[in-house]
């Protein structure tokens, strides 16, 4: 176990460094290089020159990268010129609200995906399974923003149940004051995830249904319901841990779309505004943070999975 943890940990460190390297390369790909990127489009040549000298951009590229890495390690993600505020402070305000939105959506999706996926596995290749499979197929072929638009059109404009705009509070507490406004953004994200998660539960349950221990249980006369609950369900839930880690990047991009559609003041909305106003420091800072968060999420998921299921540890050792 220790060697497994150590190996995954060292791999993650390398990947995090690679993430910063990629963002660093993109900064230098910008027309005008980092000076233009960080000072904005309206910087004068004199300003750019001062900036280059002051920040060491006349030094060799490897020393520039080390400087950049040093800044990151000290928590300096850059300074947004569109908001006139440090990127880390903007992030600190937006992150909890995004986490709330995504977290609620994940909970809704998982709670629904487990019974749906199990039902499909038990009813495999029957009408219910085909119907739900078809729905899941459409679900993940659908652009998130279109699903959101349909929900707005149906539940907000026609039926007038939920407001079409997300909550506008500045803090998580204020956002929670408007639970009805939170409903549509959460629903949109949850439906897309549900399509994916239920497929996952289904295939993992089908795999477990043909295992020897299920056959043994059946042979000794254990009721089918008990088999499903004790043998199949429990073993099918472990992969969901991995799914969390794997789906993190896509959930975050779904967040960008949902937040800009419902005007929900989280990281996604901030990132989208940053992209349309060419606020590069904001974009770079966020990209690094999201990349690092994903790597950590994957690492934690892998470790939790390795902890929950010893077979994984052995397999990954053999592969080396």
């Amino acid at each position: 176990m220790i060697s497994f943890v150590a190996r995954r940990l060292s791999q993650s460190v390398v990947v995090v460094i690679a993430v910063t390297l990629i963002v660093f390369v993109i900064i230098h790909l910008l027309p005008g290089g980092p000076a233009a990127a960080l000072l904005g489009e309206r910087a004068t040549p004199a300003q750019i020159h001062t900036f280059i000298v002051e920040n060491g951009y006349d030094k060799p590229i490897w020393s520039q990268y080390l400087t950049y890495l040093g800044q990151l390690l000290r928590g300096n993600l850059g300074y947004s010129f569109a908001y006139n505020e440090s990127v880390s402070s903007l992030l600190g305000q937006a992150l909890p609200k995004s986490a709330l939105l995504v977290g609620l959506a994940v909970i809704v999706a998982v709670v629904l995906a487990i019974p749906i996926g199990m039902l499909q596995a038990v009813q495999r290749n029957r009408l219910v399974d085909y119907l739900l499979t078809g729905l899941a197929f459409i679900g993940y072929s659908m652009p998130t923003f279109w699903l959101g638009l349909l929900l707005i059109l149906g539940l907000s404009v026609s039926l007038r149940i939920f407001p079409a705009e997300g909550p506008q509070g500045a803090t998580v507490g204020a956002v929670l004051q408007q639970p009805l406004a939170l409903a549509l953004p959460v629903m949109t994200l949850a439906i897309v995830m549900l399509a994916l998660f239920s497929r996952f539960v289904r295939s993992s349950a089908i795999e477990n249904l043909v295992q020897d221990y299920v056959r043994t249980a059946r042979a000794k006369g254990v009721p089918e319901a008990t088999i499903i609950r004790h043998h199949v369900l429990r073993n099918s839930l472990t992969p969901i841990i991995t799914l969390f880690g794997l789906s993190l990047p896509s959930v975050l991009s779904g967040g960008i779309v949902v937040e800009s559609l419902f005007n929900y003041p989280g990281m996604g909305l901030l990132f989208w505004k940053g992209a349309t106003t060419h606020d590069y420091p904001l974009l770079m800072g966020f990209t690094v943070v999201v990349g690092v968060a994903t790597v950590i999420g994957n690492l934690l998921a892998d470790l939790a999975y390795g902890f929950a299921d010893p077979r994984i540890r052995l397999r990954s050792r053999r592969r080396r």
Partner: protein
Amino acid sequence: MSIRLLTQDEDGSSTAPDEAGDGGVARMMVRVFAQNRLALVGLGIVVLIVLFCFIGPLLYHTNQVTTNPYQVTKPPSSEHPLGTDELGYDILGRLMVAGQSSLEVGLAAAALASLLGTAWGAVSGYFGGWIDAIMMRMVDALLAIPPLLLVLLLASIITPSVPVLILVIGLVSWLITARLVRGDALLLTTREYVQAARLVGASQRRIVTRHIVANVIGTVIVQTTFEVANAILLLATLGFLGLGPPPPAANWGGMLTDGLNYVYDGYWWLIYPAGVAIVLTVVGFNFIGDALRDSLEVRLQER
């Protein structure tokens, strides 16, 4: 962009590479389409969409260049079967023009991604060792950044046009292909004929192209089909977020942004057609990909 995960094995390590020798990829595809209803439906949808977008404008003439202030947001009528948008463009005609760019970008970006991913994966898997470690950690790092984030970042740096969008979407879509090909290449490298080729003195370039790449084509084609669907979704999302190709070029995602502005007026004809077009196209490619993958896996199991 919708949330998608790879449904295939994460690093492709469990799928044994197939040998192209018996029957080849082309025959496999013909058989899949002949036997599999899902594949046939998918192919049918894709063919219809292609005909609609490229042949449609020849039969159904509309003005998609100049705006018409007298015909703004008109509901469907005999003159405009799907109504008009906020600039007075006929929506049915606009769907066709927008579809052309969506399909072009989707196909070209997926092709670019497959070329890049295959080359990267084949080289990484063939050489192994530290080259493999470095190349795969790069892939891991790029996978850690959501494609939409990277695409938004790149699209905000370079003004989007159709070629730029192909490049940008292609550059964020090759990672899964690289992983799958690398997994196959690792196994192929240990095969006797690769060893033999090496002993005979074949150049490394020849081994990689003739023995590794040739044998992973099946995997690559399956993945390419999914990538077309992903690229079309990604382009639609970019268009919706206002970073698609600039006017007068049209795209399906951009058409929906206009719909958003009129959602409170209940102008459904600005919302349904473009969305249905995107979903149909993506479902079509996903059906084909799913069927191809199933048949590839079945073929491997039969062996």
